[in-house]
């Protein structure tokens, strides 16, 4: 059985409220503020899942950046 691929919704095609959150997410990432970036990525991912759509590459990359930031800031054990 083949799986039907989900359509990719590009960032430029996001509804304004989600696009705004993405801009804030990106801004937080750029100033290496992982906690704030976390606040905004949740609703963005929720939107993609609820829309049954796939994320564009930019979000994949930015999510990886977020994890890197979090790992770098993880308290020393």
């Amino acid at each position, binding site marked *: 059985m083949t799986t039907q691929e989900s359509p*990719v919704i590009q960032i430029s095609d996001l509804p304004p409220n989600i696009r705004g959150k993405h801009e804030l997410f990106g801004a937080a990432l750029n100033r290496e503020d992982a906690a704030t970036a976390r606040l905004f990525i949740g609703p963005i991912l929720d939107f993609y899942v609820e829309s049954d*759509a796939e994320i564009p590459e930019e979000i*994949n*990359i930015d*999510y990886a*950046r977020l994890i890197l*930031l979090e*790992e*770098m800031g993880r308290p020393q054990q």
Partner: protein
Amino acid sequence: MNKLTNARRLRDDHRFQQEGRSIHDPERKKNLFNRPLSMGTQVAIWSIVGSAIFVPLTERGVTELRDAAIKHVASPLITSVTGKVENGIHSIRSTWQAFGEVAVMRKELGSKLRQYDMLQAQINERKMTNGENVNLAHYNISGDAAWTTIPSTKKDLQKALDTIEEMTRAGEKEFSAVCERCRVQAADQQANSGGIAAGLVQAVESDTWQDYMAGVMSDLAEANQDGPGAVGKVLADVAGSLHGMSVLADEARKQVKSHEAAAEEPSHTHGIARR
């Protein structure tokens, strides 16, 4: 139907993170590692000292993350975890060099990539069977992703070497072809070029792949006795050399092109018509 899209997996990961689970949490790590890697995604998975992060293999991603990755490895956190900062830095630098090399080779090898479908299947199978404890160096140039980690067991080391050998064989063919074209051009154009191309041929051929790989195998065998840190250092050297060869080959290609252009201009042949 709940399709396991990247969006869903990232959303799940987000929820795991919100629950306070670390990147080392088995379920979280599994969720990230088993993400479907679509053609557009191009994700590289890098695992070091048991921690796992995934980073993109796109040009933009590599550029943006290179400094962060080096900083990450050099951070006090990793220092405390590994106690081998120097090796760690070598390893991550070699990792990024290897990523660059893979990206270059993916472009250059063209149709040869199909030969690596089997390798892709092997990698996937190995990933499944070894689960979260995958410890091997893979330079997967057939699909969308490259995985690279430092091998810590003899078995995994051997697998890593097999993979590197596969890649090297493809590279050898490619570089041999470049050398041959360069040699022909050098013979043809030497009078005009002042032997530049010939010099490049010598440079490229001075470190033959056969001798090189024999040396690598020997070094890795010795390093394996000294532990993963030493292995990582050798892999760093391997990646560095591969990168160097790639640069040489690029230079050779440029020379070939310039000679070809010169050959098409009769006025540059000392006024003697060429036949």
